């Protein structure tokens, strides 16, 4: 997954032309002009803004945003820690990877939303349950990428380290980490959108504090302006988180550039 996405990076180099925002802006302006009435389904963009202001005035918007972002970040960190640890263990041992393969394959193919009702049943409605779901489902891409990268470390590199009598610590620092870091980053790139989706899903389903809960409440009260406003806000979250991660990734990859692990 995500293997061909390098191509978009190449396109990005010709992309940052802000002219590309033109269609979106034109659409929004036309929408504002031609929807002057109070349509319950397609409210004009100005009401999106007033809807958000209403929510912000009560202080609810801020607490909800903080709760959502906190869940995403903490859940992702938990997923990274557990995914990398288990991935390393499985990657180190051929037998372990073969023995656990089908089980992991089943867990990975399981659509993450299916475990939401399960977690609710066991853990009840609280922040712990939210984090468990996010961490559990975001873990798989990181785990599988890590173990696959370790399995693909070129045998010659390991032979070399033996001939040079490198200590375990040096071996990890010089050979394992540089081979694995790019793969872990790729796993996180796949996991990040998943954490956002699952956080919102749990909030929508359980109405636990968060942006998702605000969205579903707005929909139930037919506050269509708020629904659209929150949608834009969530889109901005996604945009910012993805781009923030791209920057982090670029910085880390400069330190540990990807190797051709497939060699």
């Amino acid at each position, binding site marked *: *997954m995500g*293997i*061909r*996405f390098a*191509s*978009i990076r*190449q*396109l990005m180099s010709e*992309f*940052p*032309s*802000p*002219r*590309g*925002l*033109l*269609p*979106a802006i034109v659409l929004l302006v036309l929408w504002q002009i031609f929807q002057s009435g109070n349509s319950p*389904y397609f409210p004009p963009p100005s009401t999106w803004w007033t809807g958000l202001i209403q929510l912000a005035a009560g202080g609810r918007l801020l607490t909800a945003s903080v709760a959502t972002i906190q869940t995403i970040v903490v859940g992702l960190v938990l997923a990274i820690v557990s995914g990398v640890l288990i991935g390393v263990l499985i990657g180190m041992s051929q037998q372990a*990877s*073969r*023995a*656990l*393969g*089908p*089980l*992991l*394959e*089943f867990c990975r*193919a*399981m*659509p*993450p*939303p*299916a*475990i939401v*009702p*399960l977690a609710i*049943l*066991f853990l009840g409605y609280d922040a712990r349950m939210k984090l468990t779901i996010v961490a559990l489902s975001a873990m798989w891409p990181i785990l*599988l*990428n890590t173990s*696959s990268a370790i399995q693909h470390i070129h045998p010659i590199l390991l032979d070399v380290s033996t001939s040079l009598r490198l200590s375990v610590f040096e071996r990890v620092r010089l050979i394992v980490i540089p081979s694995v870091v790019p793969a872990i980053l790729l796993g996180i790139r796949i996991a990040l959108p998943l954490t*956002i*989706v699952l956080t*919102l*899903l749990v909030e*929508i*389903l359980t109405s636990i504090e968060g942006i*998702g809960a605000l*969205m*579903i409440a707005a929909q139930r009260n*037919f506050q269509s302006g708020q*629904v659209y406003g*929150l*949608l834009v806000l*969530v*889109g901005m979250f*996604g*945009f910012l988180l993805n781009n923030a991660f791209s920057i982090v990734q670029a910085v880390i990859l400069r330190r540990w550039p990807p190797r051709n692990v497939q060699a």
Partner: protein
Amino acid sequence: MASGRAVSRINWPGLAVLALVLLAWEAVVRAGVIDFEFFPAPSAILAGGIELAKDGILLQDLLHTLLSIAIGWSIAMLIGISVGLLLGFSPLVRRYSLASIEVLRPMPGIAFAPLGLLLFGFSLQTELVVTVLPTVWPVMINTMGGIANVQPRLADVGRTFRLSRHEIIRHLLLPAALPSIIVGARISLGLALVMAIVAEIVGNPEGLGYGIVREQQALHPEAMFAYIAVVGVLGVILNAGVLGLTSLLWPATVPRRGM
């Protein structure tokens, strides 16, 4: 992992571990080590599943989910490939719309559920809104990337052979972009399953996703676990099926190792 090769060589240790986990689970529940009210043993789940299957409701839910995946994925492919081709072939269109697409793309699909509910209520349309919007992107981006990344020299070769523009596109550019498009289609299909389940949990009271919630709320944990297992098996089958089909039709497009 080795989904393709798994067919030719059965992974006995892997299957043994799977069986062992199920056995341990059964034993733990039977012995009452875990005292969870809602934690049925695998045998009870199987019985619950058979009950549901006899009832016919499981099949009905499965068919609904498959149907909405099929419709949603087809719509996403149609939009994704046509817009992707347009973007790939025309640098002008790309320049004047790519930024808009990049702003919309990271939007989490689930965020459209309240919007779908607002517009269509609890219905198949809501499910399709939630399914189609996020699944369009992988196909669109991969189609665009596939076309735009074809070696410019390939088109030059076509011109040397005096092929018409139409022939160059049909015989040179499209085949060159095909692997990338197929990868996008595969990612989209996996996503379509996830989003269909999400939509059924939140927005459309039908199908496997709703089955899970329904049985959870009715406090029938065996039936709920049975639905979850069916969803997991469906995921495995769709994954393996699409991977197998593509490796049969276009061997070059399948990565050497699973993932």
